[in-house]
């Protein structure tokens, strides 16, 4: 088997079977599942009212009948006609409450006695009683029920939210805005998580083989370049599997839930095509570029250490860069035109974090976007080249000194190997 393939296959199979990968793969799904479950239960708790039994004690028997008809969850127990009976039933928990209602002229007076936990029912009962009173008064005024209904119709109030941009009033699409901002946050977090996870995986891969002193045997059977790219391509394939899995899950979920009321409602309000287009146009470029760039940096850092215990030490500079990018990204959301944000969106190793926000807030033209992409591509190639040169020298240096000294030592070796 081609040796590059051996490295790719080994790296790929080892990582997709690892607990770290599986948990990274499933965690977002579990989190989304838990959030959806919470929303679902919360909704059903608020919208669906529990069934209750009440008594209506009144000279006007129509009141009980109207309540019974108006609300499914309320059962009016007709047999109970006195307060004493009702209270006796409540004590045995056969009854949840009772209403004493009567007319004083055209005023319907009612009092409700009930056990706790019926607040939503009280609002409904109050509305029903108000309706009964309104209908009675309308009748007295000789107004038809339809006319009474029309009196109750609410006004039409349309909202137009605008922002002032360079002296012009621009209407804002609230939902589209929310989606753009939400997607940018989501993408920023996703890019950070992907970069951190895959960069650390690369460090572990390289440092693992170097730390266990396998490197000499490996490099006596193939070149450092083959090893370098084999490891990186293997990890990159793991990432592709990761993304494909999510795409499949989203597609599967869409196919399954597309007829669900909530989803059709959301889909009718969002131009899903536009959101996807936005994503396809830029974001995947930043995601893949970001991961690639940091994977190369990670391979370089991984090759600097000599013991597997030092993996965290190698990951520290990378983590700091990633966090810097992440926070500038968050800051970019609030002030997309801040000079620091604008400048850092063109700094290659920060571009993947910052540029999506500038795109989301429409503060950057596509020429600039592609310029930053071009810069990142060139920088990634440069990082790959430098990493490879040092990697070839570093992988056989086993000094216990600081990372800076190791870099100096490998530089000396790079020069002596010329």
């Amino acid at each position, binding site marked *: 088997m081609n*040796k590059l393939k051996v490295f790719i296959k080994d790296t790929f199979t080892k990582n997709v079977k690892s607990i770290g990968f599986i948990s990274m793969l499933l965690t977002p799904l579990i989190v989304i599942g838990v959030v959806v479950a919470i929303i679902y239960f919360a909704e059903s708790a608020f919208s669906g009212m529990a069934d209750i039994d009440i008594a209506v004690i009144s000279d006007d028997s129509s009141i009980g009948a109207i309540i019974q008809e108006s609300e499914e969850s309320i059962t009016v127990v007709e047999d109970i006609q006195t307060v004493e009976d009702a209270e006796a039933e409540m004590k045995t928990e056969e009854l949840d409450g009772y209403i004493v209602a009567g007319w004083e002229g055209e005023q319907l007076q009612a009092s409700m006695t009930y056990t706790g936990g019926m607040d939503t029912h009280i609002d409904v009962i109050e509305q029903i009683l108000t309706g009964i009173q309104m209908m009675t008064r309308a009748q007295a005024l000789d107004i038809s029920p339809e006319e009474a209904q029309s009196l109750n119709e609410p006004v039409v109030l349309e909202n137009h939210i605008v922002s002032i941009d360079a002296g012009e009033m621009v209407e804002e699409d609230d939902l589209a805005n929310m989606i753009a901002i939400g997607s940018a946050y989501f993408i920023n977090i996703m890019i950070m998580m992907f970069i951190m996870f895959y960069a650390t995986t690369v460090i572990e891969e390289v440092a693992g083989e170097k730390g*266990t*002193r*396998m490197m000499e*045997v490996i*490099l*006596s*059977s193939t070149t450092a370049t083959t090893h370098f790219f084999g490891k990186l391509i293997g990890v990159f394939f793991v990432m592709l599997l990761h993304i494909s899995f999510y795409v499949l899950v989203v597609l599967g979920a869409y196919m399954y839930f597309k007829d669900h009321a909530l989803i059709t409602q959301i889909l009718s309000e969002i131009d899903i095509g536009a959101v996807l287009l936005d994503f396809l146009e830029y974001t995947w470029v930043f995601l893949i570029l970001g991961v690639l760039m940091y994977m190369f940096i990670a391979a370089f850092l991984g090759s600097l250490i000599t013991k597997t215990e030092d993996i965290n030490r190698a990951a520290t500079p990378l983590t700091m860069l990633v966090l810097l990018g992440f926070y500038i990204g968050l800051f970019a959301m609030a002030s997309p035109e801040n000079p620091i944000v604008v400048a850092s969106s063109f700094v290659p190793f920060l571009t993947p974090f910052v540029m999506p926000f500038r795109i989301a807030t429409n503060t950057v033209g596509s020429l600039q976007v592609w310029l930053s992409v071009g810069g990142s591509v060139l920088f990634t190639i440069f990082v790959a080249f430098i990493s490879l040169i040092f990697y070839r020298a570093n992988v*056989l240096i086993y000094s216990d000194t600081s990372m800076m000294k190791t870099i100096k030592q490998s530089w*000396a070796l790079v020069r002596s190997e010329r």
Partner: protein
Amino acid sequence: MLEVTDLKKAFGSLQAVDDVSFKIDSGQIMGLIGQNGSGKTTTFRLILKLLTQDDGTIRWNGKPFTKEFFNRVGYLPEERGLNQKMTVEHQILYFAQLRGKTKAEIDPLIDQWLEDFQVVGGRKDKIKSLSKGNQQKVQLITTLIHEPELIILDEPFSGLDPVNAELLENGIRDARDRGASIIFSSHNMNNVEELCDNMVMLKNGRQVLNGTIHDIRESFGRTRLFLESPLNRAELEQVPGVLDVREVNNGTHYVTLENADVGHQIFDLATKEGYIPTFSQQPPTLEQIFKQIAGEVNE
């Protein structure tokens, strides 16, 4: 056949390997000896292209040794290394595939090799569950299982008990009998003396000895004499050219001579009255040669 000619390598101002030349024929074993830091590992790394030489050539069967020959190499580095999380068979297959073998070729051989090297542990066991000695044996298997034509072993005997050292010796002899060219470094001169046809000694990167074990020893002259005779210590010390006399056990003396000719005088003296049980005049052992050369002040 591996042929190394005028190999040189410097790291900054340090000349790590300086004009080293040797040849290992197919089916031959060569020992590379020298003190720590004498350039043995650097020499190995130069042969294996882990480092690039400043000067000199390395040829394999008459052609420059390049990466295309990597599949024919078996290399055991001084710093042993196995992935602790891998299973034994995964580790063996991984290295074998990096030597161009397929899983189908190597997989059926694993059990026999584990048995031959008496590895305590199954092929499905994780490396980390094996004892250090067994891990070392697994590493030896990974070095040899693909039947390499050139075998480079850096301190293969270090850390092995006598039983395991013998298993390794057998493995090396088997590879030699297959026709492999083998080079190994060792601090244990007994291993070198028992196994090697040829030997090279490095000192500060320079080659100070090169040849067959027999020739090298003989070149130092037969200056060690074991003598069991009527002569006592004082009489022996009076012979011109005797440098040192030690009584090793009852009646047997170990005499260090200035040169081999002194032995003739002692023989005549000792046999003046006829039969003596022991007169054994020998060249210095490899260990003595090693110590002698290592101890010499750098020129």
